[in-house]
């Protein structure tokens, strides 16, 4: 009888230790963020400054909004390549409409609807026309970018109306609205993901689509909605961008896709779907922003920046693999 109790406490200890390791790994991104912050405070001149921390958050705001949408797509086991193009297209259309003296509020609503429509189109292409996510969003990525280019002939639209720029460049008591919006969106979607039935379905579809279908979940609906959200958020990011730059160009958002995916994956969201949460993605976004901020403050050769980012991505992918193994099996 004594043997039995000893065995139990052994497994207990093992379980507790594994739980602790998992806890650390799931929050690993924040540990990395912490390390970089300490490094920055000590070695990088100008880093240790409240205004600079505000700047880091400004670096994160647009990327953060995009990372939310991209993370949701990743969680379902898909990905969205068109986020940058929808950002640009919505921005261009918004700027044009505003220049035609349409009131800003209506312009903003139109922009969001454009994103909603573009996202919905992605969802339909993937689920009803059965293209895979890569092909579908690659096509729409090229299409929206090309259309934006064609409409304005490569020109930049500058000097935009006050109302349109409010969310992107406005401040409340000195604090930039875009940061507040980005953080609020993270909180909102995090709660939606972890506390609602729909959020739970997103995870299940990403983890095992067949099981989800067999248990009665409408998998098409889940994925179409997720892409619609991603499209809408991309358009919203476009609004923030033209707001903070006071100009719209069809080239905006050309390189941001890589950063959005990197942020999500470095944060801990799995490429295979079903694993991760938005707080991880936020961690990834903040990390990338800290790095770009440090590179602006410190005199590092620009070539190293890309190398550093690549290394971090590699580390993150490795961590992701280790974590998945640990979490599933003994």
């Amino acid at each position: 009888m004594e043997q039995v109790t000893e065995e139990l406490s052994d497994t207990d200890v093992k379980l507790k230790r594994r739980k602790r390791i998992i806890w650390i790994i799931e929050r690993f991104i924040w540990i990395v963020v912490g390390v970089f912050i300490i490094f920055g405070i000590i070695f990088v001149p100008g880093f240790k400054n409240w205004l600079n921390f505000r700047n880091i958050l400004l670096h994160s705001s647009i990327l953060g909004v995009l990372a939310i949408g991209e993370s949701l797509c990743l969680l379902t086991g898909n990905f969205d390549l068109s986020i940058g193009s929808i950002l640009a297209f919505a921005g261009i259309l918004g700027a044009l409409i505003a220049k035609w003296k349409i009131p800003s509020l209506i312009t903003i609503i139109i922009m969001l609807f454009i994103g909603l429509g573009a996202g919905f189109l992605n969802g339909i292409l993937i689920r009803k026309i059965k293209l895979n996510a890569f092909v579908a969003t690659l096509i729409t990525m090229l299409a929206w970018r090309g259309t934006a280019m064609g409409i304005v002939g490569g020109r930049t639209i500058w000097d935009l109306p006050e109302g349109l720029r409010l969310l992107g460049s406005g401040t409340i008591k000195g604090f930039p609205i875009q940061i507040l919006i980005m953080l609020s969106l993270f909180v909102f979607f995090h709660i939606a993901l972890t506390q609602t039935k729909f959020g739970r379905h997103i995870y299940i579809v990403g983890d095992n689509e067949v099981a989800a279908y067999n248990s009665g979940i409408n998998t098409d609906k889940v994925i179409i909605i997720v892409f619609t959200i991603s499209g809408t958020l991309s358009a919203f990011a476009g609004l923030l961008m033209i707001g903070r730059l006071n100009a719209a160009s069809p080239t905006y958002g050309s390189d941001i896709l890589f950063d959005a995916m990197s942020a999500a994956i470095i944060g801990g969201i799995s490429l295979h779907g079903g694993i991760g949460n938005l707080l991880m993605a936020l961690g990834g976004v903040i990390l990338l922003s800290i790095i770009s901020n440090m590179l602006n403050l410190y005199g590092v050769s620009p070539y190293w920046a890309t190398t550093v980012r690549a290394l971090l991505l590699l580390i993150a992918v490795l961590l992701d693999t280790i974590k998945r193994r640990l979490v599933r099996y003994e």
Partner: protein
Amino acid sequence: MALTSVYADEGFVFGYSAPGLGDEGQMNIQKGFEIGCRDLGIKCITTNAQMNAEKQLRDIETLIARGVDAICAVPYDSKAIGQAVKAAMEAGIPFFTIDRGVLEGKVVITVMADNYDAAAQAGMALVRLLQGKYHGLAKGKILEIMGNPAQDVAQLRHQGFIDVVSQYPDIEVISKPGYWNTDEGYKIVLDVLTANPDIDAIYFHADLYIPGIIEAIKAVKGTFKKVGEEGHIFIVGIDGNPMALDYIRKGFIDGDMIQPLREYGKFIVPYIKAYLEKGKEALPKPGLIVKEGSPYFPAVVVDTPHGLVVKMKTYYVDKHNVDDPTLWGNIPLEKEKLETTK
């Protein structure tokens, strides 16, 4: 084997291969060439590679097949274009480039802006502005927003600037790469200006950075001080597009180096024609080409292993001459239909 022109009786036909026509810069360059042809009664066929090196090669093959008398291209990829140059040579069609040079193969003439000189002039302009601020002393802190440091355009625009400014030991330059991305430029100004509130001037490699620069200054300082106001940060750069000219007029930026985008075509077309008619002796000789009254001259002519290179000057524009109607930024692009081949 030389292909005879299909239009031998009607005059010359030149082929123009654009790397892309999605930005006003390239559109103006193409217009300049087209107008140059029109003025001499030469027919011009334009192709659009839509930002794809492979496509540009195929476009040029198409032009060769159509039997054009000469080809003028803006290379999308200065190395990959070498194949097209070779193909044209084998077909007996002389190859020219404008706006950018080639890194492989030998063309007859390349006409482009002297990026190094443009950067040097911008440097001089900023030095003068700083001297104005500091009662004759050439001192201050300048933030340079570079393009993509891997490209030679950005390297030249950096080097020309640094070589001028480094002669003044009390001027400090902070250089950061913006990779031709407006938002990156915004972030650079945000970060550097916060850490260095004493920045006196900003030098940018391309007009696309302007909106980000202005908004970032607003974000950091709270307001934006225009030209002439106390606390104004001098802003000078390179390009000359309509947006930049507008900002100069409104007093947001101090000056811009105007690239002679329309001049390339206007300059080179007569030389192409002369070359076809008279051969090598019609080509410009290494040295200087002087043209009275034109701010884009004297142009420097250099013989290089990749062909003859003509570097035209850029023209500093500030509030005094911003309304000059010959500036490409002041000429509206007519929406005519170009004869393009796919």
